[in-house]
Structures are given as C-alpha cells and as structure tokens.
C-alpha cells in the first residue's frame, strides 16, 4: 500500500471514530448507552458510505470500491430476502405445509394445496443448472417460465401497447366548433380553448404517424415520406428532451436527499 493511501485511510478512520463518538454523545432520546452507540455508528457509517460513493466524482478510489462492492452484495441479498418472505413464506408455505407455517409464524390456509408442490419441484430442476451433467434438465423449468411469460405477453402487449395506443390516437381534429370568436378567445396552453384543443390533437395524431414513419426503414426517407420522417424526429427530440429533463430532476432530488442527510442527520448543521 502506498504511503499516501495509508495516510488518507488513517485520516478517514480517525474521522469515522470522532464522528461516532460525537453522534453517540448527541444521540436524541435513547434508552441505553448501547442504543446510543448503535445509533451513532449507523449514522456515521451511512454518512461514510454516502461520501465514499460521492468520492468517485474525483476519481476511482478504494473507498468507492468498498462501497460499490458492498452495494452489490447487499442488493442481491435484499432481493433474495424479499423474494423468500413475500413469495415462499407469503404465498407457498401457507398452501403446502402447516409445520413450515408454524416455523415462520404465518397463517396456514387450512388445506393442503398439492398443486403448489409443482413449482418447488420446477425450482429444484432450475437449480440443476449448477450440476455439470444434469444442467440440461433445468431447461424444463426455464421453458415453463419462458412459455408462460410469452403467452401472457402476447395478448397483453397487443391490447395495451398496440390496440389501445392506436385507438387513443383517433382524435377529432376539429373540436366543438363554436365560431371564430370563440376559437381565438383563449390561447393559453393550459386552457381548454378550441385552438389549443385542435393544436394538441393535431400534434398527437401527426406526431404518432410521423414518429412511426421515422422508425420505418423499409422505404427510403425521401420526398413527402422524408419530410414526415423529419417531422417525426422533431417530435422525438422534444420527447427525449422532456425525458432527459425529468431524469435529471429525479437524480437531483436524490442528491438533495443525500445532502440533507449529511447536513441534518449527520452534521446537524440544518434543521430537518
């Protein structure tokens, strides 16, 4: 280990201990010293992890790598734990075993549903993938999942992503015509005036058609077809911009949350 790395690590460890002591001494409304110590440690550790991840903005470093690997391990375990409790304990055990329900303290459904012994068997077949010789048998369970999902998606996507979207695009281009005076009387985009309604419906109908034309590559984008395609990409660019803006604001709100944690929960500089 390089000398500079050792010095930085030492400083971080000292700061961590100092923060732990400080947070323990200032822990609000705790019953015992142990609780105060735990609370102090947890807040300090969360702050350390936050800063460790943020340190990547400077460059890759051992603290970031530590936090990154911890995140991978913890996330995998979290998914597994939730899957176990919500699916196996919540859905399977109450239907197959009173004994298992007793162990995990969940209510038994009252009767043994033997059909529910099939999914664990298929699950065990899936685990056969780990076996060098019997790996092929895991395909049976995989085939069940793939077939069920494909069959489920076929009508569902056809209805929600195709038929519903097309039917939603069939909009009137002239709405509630009440004369020219009324037509220009309210031009605010938030209003339900005629001009805005007609413009909006026109944008939807032409946007969907031209957007689809842009993605149609079996015909060269030239002439009227090319113009429609160009209009389509304008609409697509507006959408990508809107999605980009939304994503950035979502990330910034997460950042604000982390900074609030550091300033309030950890350092206590601002009041929450």
């Amino acid at each position, binding site marked *: 280990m390089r000398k500079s790395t050792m010095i930085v690590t030492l400083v971080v460890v000292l700061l961590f201990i100092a923060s732990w002591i400080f947070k323990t001494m200032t822990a609000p409304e705790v019953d015992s010293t142990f609780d105060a110590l735990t609370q102090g440690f*947890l807040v300090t550790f*969360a*702050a350390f992890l*936050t800063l460790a991840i943020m340190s990547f*903005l400077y460059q890759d470093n051992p603290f970031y790598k530590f936090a990154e690997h911890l995140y991978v*391990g913890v996330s995998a*375990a979290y*998914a*597994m734990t939730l899957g176990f409790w919500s699916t*196996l304990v919540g*859905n399977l055990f109450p239907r197959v075993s009173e004994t298992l329900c007793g162990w995990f303290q969940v209510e038994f459904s009252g009767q043994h549903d033997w*059909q*529910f012994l099939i*999914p*664990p068997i298929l*699950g*065990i077949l*899936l*685990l056969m993938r780990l076996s060098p010789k019997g790996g092929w048998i895991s*395909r*049976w369970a*995989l*085939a069940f999942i*793939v077939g*069920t999902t494909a*069959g489920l*998606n*076929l*009508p*569902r*996507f056809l209805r929600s*992503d*195709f038929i519903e*979207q097309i039917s939603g695009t069939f909009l009137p281009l002239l709405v509630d015509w009440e004369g020219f005076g009324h037509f220009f009387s309210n031009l605010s*985009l*938030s209003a339900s005036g005629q001009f805005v309604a007609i413009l909006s419906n026109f944008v*939807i*109908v*032409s*946007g*969907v058609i*031209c*957007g*689809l034309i842009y993605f149609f590559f079996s015909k060269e984008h030239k002439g009227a077809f090319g113009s429609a395609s160009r209009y389509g990409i*304008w*609409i697509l660019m507006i*959408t990508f*911009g*809107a*999605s*980009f*803006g*939304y994503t*950035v*604001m979502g*990330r*910034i709100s*997460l*950042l604000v949350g982390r900074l609030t*944690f550091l300033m309030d929960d950890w350092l206590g500089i601002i009041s929450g």
Partner: protein
Amino acid sequence: MKKEIPLFIVFITGLFMAVQFFVPHAKSEWVYEYMLDWTIIIGVFALALGIWSFVRVATNKIRRKSENWQYSIVALAGLFGMIIFGLGFWGGVESYMFRNFFNFVMVPLHATMFSLLAFFIASAAFRAFRAHSLLASVLLLSAIIIMIRFNPFLGPLSEPIDSLASWILNFPNMAAKRAIVIGIGLGMVATALKVILGIERTYLGGD
C-alpha cells in the same frame, strides 16, 4: 429429448396463456392464477441460482487472488450479513438488524449511486449539446422547460412555464411515446410468437 421437451412445454404453456385471455371462464382463470403464482415461485429459485453464481464468482476471485480480490470479501460480507439478518434468524425483514441494514446501508448506497448519475448526465448532455444542430437545440429547449418547471423561484413566470411544460408532456411527448410504444408492442408480440412456435430458441443455450 434435451430440446424437444422444453420446446413442447413452451408451446403448451404459451398457447394456454395466450388463449386463456379470450376464454373468461372460471376454470380457465383458476388455472391462469395458478400458473402465474407458480411462475413467481420458480422465479425465487432463479434468484437463488443468481446468488449462488455471484458467490462462486466472488470466492473464485478470492481464491485466485485476482485483482481487487479484497473487495469481493466486502461484497460477500454484505450479502451474507443481509441474508442472515433477513432470513429469520433474528426476526426476518421486520427485525431491528435488517431494518437498520436497509435504512443505514442500502438506502444511502442506492440513493447516492443514482444521485451520482445527475453529474454524469449533465456532463454527457453538455457534450451532446455542443453539437450545435437544430435538433440538439430542440432537445435542449424541451429539457430546460421541463427542468425549470421545478424551480421554486420563478415568480410570475411559474404559471406559464408550468402550463407549457404540462402541454409538452401531455401532447408532443405523448405522441412520440405512443409511436415508440406501438413499436415495442409489435416487437413483443412478434418475439412472443417466435418463442411459442419454437423459432426463437436462444434461451435453451448450447448443446
């Protein structure tokens, strides 16, 4: 047999699930519910398979002393820590330890990791917008309108900006999203048909 039986299972289950949609009978819905529950339960075993694979990669890295092998110990410690606290030895997901692991380890890591993307997105956008093209400017303008909508210091501009942003989201944005979704829908239907009919077989792997 190694490939025929899985193809048969896919055909039967796929066909049943597709046809079931058009048969709203109590019996067919009963089987449909069962199959959905079964799929979810098998999915948990798939998760276990993933965890096992992860453990094997990490332990191999440690055993071979590959580059940065020390961090694999951290990953395994996080994994087993969370599993031990979460799988019931101290009360499961409602336990004090699991909740603390979640609130003080997982939440900070998750939120900070994703908040970091704000900086990278901003930097990538800066480079993209330097393209000086009209289309890039349209994208930028749309993004700016949506972003400043959330600004609390707009004063009298707040209402018109809000209505413009809402209009962009509800109309041009929806039009393009619809075009994309129609494409996705057609793609999904085509892929599902290929899987059910056994034309798409990559999920079976080699051999």
